């Protein structure tokens, strides 16, 4: 049942021209940044070569670009999460799901799974683009994979957050704006406290992705992401159940 819903959502994702447009723009911006970053690296390469233990291509090109991709996804993902439940409510299609023999859990997980499918596509295409450096030089594939996992977890967290906000309203735009605002807010919490080891910073998903960005897999970070995602999914399920009670 979860798969049925996920498949339908993915199909309507890719049936909409706007998806392709956003995906295309995302790829274009990313490619642009990638090339300019690579250019800068090539110019600095001679100087870097003189430093002992100089950072490699993966560390100086790929890792920062993953950081940029996070920001791009932070701005783009709400455009996809917004419609998932808010639009069902606005178009009054939610009764189809509520009256079908499908639990709220299956509805939410189905929708979330479709988001993950889309995110996986973005992350894979980004990672593949960066892996092309491997054609010219030696890449640290471990670091690359670690970065991709970090990006995946971050995007999955933002998707869960966006899905919950989409369940709260019947206006997709409201869902999108609040999702963007919240994810930017969480990001600001991170960069605002960058120099301190304050507890506030531990709230922000981007702070937890930083270790992964540097190639460090900490179980505390993984637990953080698991808790973050589960919490928002549970809240969404609860919201949908409450919908039957109070709507």
């Amino acid at each position, binding site marked *: *049942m979860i798969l*049925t*819903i996920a498949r*339908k959502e993915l*199909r*309507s994702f890719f*049936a*909409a021209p706007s998806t392709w447009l956003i995906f295309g723009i995302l790829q274009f911006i990313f490619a642009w940044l990638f090339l300019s970053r690579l250019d800068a690296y090539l110019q600095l390469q001679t100087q870097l070569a003189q430093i002992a233990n100089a950072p490699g291509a993966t560390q100086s090109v790929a890792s920062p670009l993953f950081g940029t991709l996070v920001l791009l996804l932070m701005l783009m993902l709400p455009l996809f999460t917004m419609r998932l439940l808010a639009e069902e409510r606005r*178009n*009054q*299609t*939610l*009764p*189809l*799901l*509520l*009256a*079908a*023999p*499908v*639990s709220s859990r299956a509805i939410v997980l189905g929708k979330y799974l479709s988001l993950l499918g889309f995110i996986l596509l973005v992350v894979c295409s980004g990672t593949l683009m960066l892996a092309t450096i491997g054609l010219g030089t030696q890449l640290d594939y471990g670091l690359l994979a670690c970065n991709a996992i970090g990006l995946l977890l971050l995007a999955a967290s933002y998707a869960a957050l966006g899905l919950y906000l989409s369940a709260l309203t019947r206006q997709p735009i409201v869902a999108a704006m609040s999702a963007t605002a919240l994810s930017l807010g969480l990001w600001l919490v991170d960069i605002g406290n960058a120099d301190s080891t304050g507890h506030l910073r531990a709230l922000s998903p981007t702070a937890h992705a930083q270790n992964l960005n540097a190639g460090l897999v900490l179980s505390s970070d993984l637990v953080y992401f698991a808790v973050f995602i589960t919490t928002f999914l549970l809240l969404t399920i609860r919201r949908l159940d409450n919908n*039957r*009670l109070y*709507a």
Partner: protein
Amino acid sequence: MTAPITLSARHLVRRYGPRNIIQDVSIELRQGEVLGLLGHNGAGKSTTLQMLTGALTPHSGTIEICGFDLNRQPEQAKACVGFLPETPPLYRDMRVDDYLVYAARLHRLPASRLAAALDDCKQRCGLQDCGKKIIATLSKGYQQRVGIAQAIIHRPTVIILDEPTVGLDPAQIRDIRGLIRELGTSHSVILSTHLLSEVEHICDRVEIMQNGRLIYGDSSTRMKQFGHQPGFTITLLTPPPLSELAAIAGVASVEAVSENLFRITHDLGQDPGATLLALAAERGWQASQLTPLKGSIEEVYTRIMESESA
């Protein structure tokens, strides 16, 4: 009636804030029955139907569908129900076929029966030529049909339709009523409406709802008789004096509507029509037309409403 009970709802209550919008509603439905839920806008029809489908949870009361408790075994119970909400729940960017297949899968129709069910329900709803069309491009009438198709594709035992004919043109209304009537022979159907003629045409039984309560329930033919004197009008081209008509056994009153037209009422079960026609033939009154008095359901409805609010 001995057909098995397919749906029974007992003492449903639904609150909205401090206000009870549904109070103590009990409904029972048997196989092969079409039940009309009649009421003004805002009487609580849609809320009741949504509760019966599990889209809303009642604050108290129990609902049993095909023997499954909707609260304890929601998935089994809901699998027996097809629901068309007030606004058909259509994904406008999908193709009709894809949409119907999705609806069928959501209702756990096994993949092996999918193709046959799709063809069958499209044929029943007159959608044979629309399978490849995008739902948004269909007219309102066809969208409504897709909505009904979605509710019946998994062959549910109970079909719940919320104002199925609203906004359709007369020809479409006739088609859809025909379809509902046909569905009513094999499934149980509940439909809500504020149109009395709809109840008259397609329902076996009617429940009238006002302010969240059921105020009257009976068979729709009995409802037609409620509150009106049985009788008929008859045209006699060479009429006898009124007294002669009044003397016929069973006639309660005679009234001359015009020179040739008479309105005759009688007591229940003593229809003097046959006697009158025989006499007319014997005495050369030239009877040309006999029409039973049609008690309009509107009158009944208004009368019940008035007696309730009085």
